[in-house]
């Protein structure tokens, strides 16, 4: 049952290299989709929290408090079990009996999206608050209509200010994809677990999984830093 690490990780029939690589791809895909969905939620959440209406602000506050305060794994369970029940009801009503479940990838992306959206709300909100009111007034004073002001003055600056926080949130999202292993998604951790169980080499395969996360984290971190640096040029002396 024990083989050399080199053999076990190879891409041949005996090796786990290919499944692991595929699983890494799924991890990345889930992270990217979850983060992007979260950005959508984040912009909406920030808009809610910055609104003039107290009811909207409250809704935004509830969103961020709940989904930042509750453990992510519970949110995953919520969507996994809850999603299946909802879908089953829907299909049953529509005349299709039986039990239906959503694909784990979709559930995972939804769960990650809604949680990271709560954090991204705070990032966008903080980024927005750093804008100088005077600049908006100057734009209004030359006759710029509100939507144009948003597009050309507010959004670009708010985004740049939010970027460092968004980078941290991305790193969290990447690591959170590992939670999806418990709902059956064959991402990196689950695949490593399968390999570990089959070959009785948990140290090797979990070690490899850890290494992959580290590498992806570092590479994406550098990419973020590059972008941050490029976008921050107007403020550097």
């Amino acid at each position, binding site marked *: 049952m024990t083989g050399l690490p080199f053999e076990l990780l190879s891409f041949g029939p005996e090796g786990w290299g290919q499944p692991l690589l595929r699983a890494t791809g799924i991890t990345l895909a889930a992270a990217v989709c979850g983060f992007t969905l979260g950005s959508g939620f984040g912009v909406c959440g920030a808009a809610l929290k910055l609104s003039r209406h107290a009811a909207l602000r409250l809704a935004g506050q509830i969103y961020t408090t709940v989904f930042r305060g509750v453990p992510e*794994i519970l949110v995953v369970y919520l969507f996994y079990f809850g999603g299946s029940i909802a879908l089953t009801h829907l299909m049953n009503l529509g005349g299709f009996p039986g039990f239906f479940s959503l694909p784990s990838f979709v559930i995972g992306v939804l769960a990650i999206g809604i949680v990271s959206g709560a954090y991204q709300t705070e990032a966008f909100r903080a980024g927005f608050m750093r804008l100088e009111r005077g600049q908006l007034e100057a734009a209004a004073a030359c006759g710029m209509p509100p939507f144009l002001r948003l597009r050309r003055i507010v959004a670009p600056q708010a985004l740049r200010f939010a970027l460092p926080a968004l980078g941290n949130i991305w790193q969290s999202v990447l690591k959170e994809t590992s939670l999806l292993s418990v709902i059956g998604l064959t991402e990196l951790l689950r695949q490593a677990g399968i390999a570990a169980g089959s070959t009785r080499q*948990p140290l090797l395969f979990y070690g490899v999984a850890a290494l992959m996360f580290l590498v992806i984290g570092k590479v994406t971190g550098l990419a973020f830093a590059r972008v941050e640096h490029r976008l921050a040029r107007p403020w550097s002396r």
Partner: protein
Amino acid sequence: MDWPFLLDTTLQLLSGVPLALQLAALSLTAGLVLAVMAQAAMVSGVAPLRWIAVAYIDLFRGTPLLVQIFFIYYGLGQIPAVRESALWPILREPYWCAVLALALNTSAYSAEIIRGALAAVPLGEVEAARACGMSGLLLRRRIVWPIALRHGLPIYGSEAILMVKATSLTSIITLTEITGIAHKLIASTYRVVEIFVAAGAIYLAMAFLLTLVIGLAERRLNAHLTHRRN
């Protein structure tokens, strides 16, 4: 809203709170000790020690907690030396594997918090102390550490709350804390929303209480920052 069910669920979930708090408290304490050691290694000036500390912090902040938990829980048993050691009865228990993994994880984040807090001490105040002839342990004890503590406490408070949330992952290696009980209930009753609400409320309550406690500590330490000019 099925109130009797909600009440019964909440009571069942609450029985998991002591375990969750235990796990959090143990790992935070051990983690803090490890963090201080790591920080000491970083500033020691001994290059190999520094590299090890930096690699250690990078490792535990850059990999998912669940991977760390699995690595320790499933991996330790693979090493013959561990299996045959006197510690094996302890190390095979999910409880102690969980504590170990959580402690190592939080120690890396805590080390960064300590580093940031020390860096935030205003240089001028340190110089003024040096100019009076203070140095070494006296300087650190009377000036640097108290100021750093005031900077680091709010951030460490957030870390403590994150740790309480992190204990939820130990349910995956069979520990019956709040999330473990919740999972069991959901799988058997399929009343997802009610159970999610109840469990979520308990975590939010714990976070809220923790925030209050930290806030109190902050207020006591920060009496000097309230602006009451005559």
